[in-house]
């Protein structure tokens, strides 16, 4: 028998099997280590806005009320209600930004998903200057008002595919960019209001409740 065997080979088998079990265990630990919710109502809203700016779905989902996450239909209904009656009159992006985004779509041959990826790779979003205030509604439910905050949007045309030279520079030669003043321009049924979200306490942690926000802002459905 020329094949090597014995103790060394058994050890190799065990080591490989242990490695094959240990690596998925690491992923499971990482997945479970993020404790959902936040320590305070302000931290919950901050995490939600930060998650939106970073397009970090896990951060967003981790801070939405657990019963709304478990029943996606409830969150979806609340979001649809909010979207239909609450809107923000935002800034008009500078023409350079539009030019770069249009170029991304044109260069990728009409593939919506690839164009979206290209735009996301070319755009940088940065959240800053958040100023939040809290108002207690009742025990375990708190309104968090957005008093100030900026989402800085900048677009780098050089990150787009293809050889086409796109004029994506602003008037002073810098990257095309603009700031969104997040606390301004909010309207509910056409009337201006100070934007806020309702947070709820669940098992000592704070979550943003889209349902409670929609009920508080618009009245029960």
């Amino acid at each position: 028998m020329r094949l090597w065997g014995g103790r060394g080979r058994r050890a190799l088998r065990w080591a490989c099997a242990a490695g094959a079990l240990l690596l998925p265990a690491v992923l499971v630990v990482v997945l479970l280590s993020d404790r959902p919710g936040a320590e305070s109502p302000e931290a919950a809203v901050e995490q939600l806005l930060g998650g939106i700016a970073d397009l970090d779905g896990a951060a967003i989902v981790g801070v939405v009320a657990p019963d709304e996450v478990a029943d996606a239909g409830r969150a979806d209904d609340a979001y649809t209600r909010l979207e239909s009656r609450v809107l923000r009159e935002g800034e008009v992006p500078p023409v350079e930004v539009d030019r770069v985004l249009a170029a991304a779509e044109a260069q990728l041959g009409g593939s919506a998903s690839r164009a979206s990826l290209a735009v996301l790779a070319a755009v940088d979003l940065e959240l800053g200057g958040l100023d939040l205030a809290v108002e207690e509604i009742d025990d375990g439910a708190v309104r968090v008002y957005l008093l100030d905050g900026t989402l800085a949007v900048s677009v780098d045309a050089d990150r787009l595919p293809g050889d086409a030279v796109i004029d994506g520079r602003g008037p002073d030669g810098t990257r095309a960019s603009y700031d969104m003043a997040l606390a301004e321009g909010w309207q509910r049924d056409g009337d201006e209001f100070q934007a806020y979200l309702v947070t709820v306490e669940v098992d000592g942690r704070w979550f943003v409740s889209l349902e409670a926000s929609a009920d508080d802002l618009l009245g029960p459905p």
Partner: protein
Amino acid sequence: MSTTSATGPMPGTPAPVDDRRRRELLGSALWAAAALAWTIAMLVPWFRAGALSHLSPIEAGGALRTGLVGIPSAAGFVVLLLPLASWVLLALAPARGRLVLAWRILLWLASTVVGLGLVVLMASVSADTYGWGAGLVVVACVLGAGGLCCSTLVRAEEAEEAQEAEG
């Protein structure tokens, strides 16, 4: 038990036990490194710049699994299939036989085609994209190719030996 002559093995004779052990150990180490690279690639962002540069595949999968983003929640498990192939390959690393080799080739090909396909897709949408995750996937595919070479050599020696024993 085989013996090794001072001048090394004669051409056409089976490789000595020490060479085979070295090859199997090297192959297992390469599969382990590839599995590690695949696993880490799930935990770090694949994009270096832009709005997606904070997001790792495992986080993206977690968001999809909630079903909140309007995509079937099963899509969130798809990202786990990629490292799954590498963990199976690691578990199979010390196993011998024709069937095991066939599975090894199949799994390595599937994970390499999907992994490199994703990296090429990223390159096609942005000229400045590759983050750590994408780099690690390429490294994992190369390490897996090395592991596959070692496994194939060992299998060839086994087959040669079996033929010799029959003859």
